[in-house]
């Protein structure tokens, strides 16, 4: 299964081993882990809750992976995203991309993460000293996703 949304934590080594299993043509695995920080927008964060849209979330991430595979020479990819209650230092999201060569693996991994940030239906609610608040979408995330739409050569 390429995409999982779950409350449970995940093990990075096990996920990458599953992605690579039986594929000796893979030479490169780029991966990313997003982690719950203890601070956001200048306020301390004691905990957060992640909500999602069951069904659409998985579909939208599958579509993002399909786009990455169409665009780069990628063998396979895997995404795990947690929902529910999380605390600082907890792992939130995992993206891994396997490829023959590293350029494609790095590019596709960053692409998937940037698109996931702006397209996959998840919402974060943070607990701060002044109460709970929904996290606002960031214009920097929109900009990060938008740069992949450019026709500029990537050199990869």
């Amino acid at each position: 299964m390429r995409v999982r949304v779950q409350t449970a934590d995940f093990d990075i080594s096990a996920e990458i081993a599953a992605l690579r299993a039986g594929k000796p043509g893979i030479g490169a695995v780029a991966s990313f882990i997003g982690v719950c920080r203890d601070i956001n927008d200048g306020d301390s964060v004691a905990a957060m809750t992640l909500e999602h849209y069951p069904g659409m979330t998985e579909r939208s991430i599958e579509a993002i992976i399909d786009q990455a595979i169409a665009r780069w020479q990628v063998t396979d990819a895997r995404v795990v995203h947690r929902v529910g209650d999380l605390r600082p230092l907890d792992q939130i999201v995992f993206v891994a991309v396997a490829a023959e060569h590293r350029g494609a693996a790095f590019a596709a991994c960053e692409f998937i993460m940037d698109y996931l940030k702006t397209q996959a239906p998840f919402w974060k609610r943070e607990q701060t000293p002044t109460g709970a608040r929904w996290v606002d979408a960031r214009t920097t995330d929109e900009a990060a996703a938008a740069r992949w739409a450019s026709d500029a050569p990537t050199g990869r």
Partner: protein
Amino acid sequence: MKLLYFARLRERLGLGEESVELPPGVASVAQLRAWLASRGGEWADALQDRSVRIAVNQDMATADTPVTDADEVAFFPPVTGG
């Protein structure tokens, strides 16, 4: 039609899910949104917020996307996962 509301919008409306029957003349996302806003109060404010995103049958939709009683339509704020 099945309607879903998520995150800040769900809290604001005090409702996560409902079933409705579309009245005559409501056949697009824009018309559905206007009809729900006509409930007044929080509904008017929340649904007229330009940042609201709408998905029809789990695909992102635009104002022109057609809707019928067989569809699942979701309203939510910009996403903040990852």
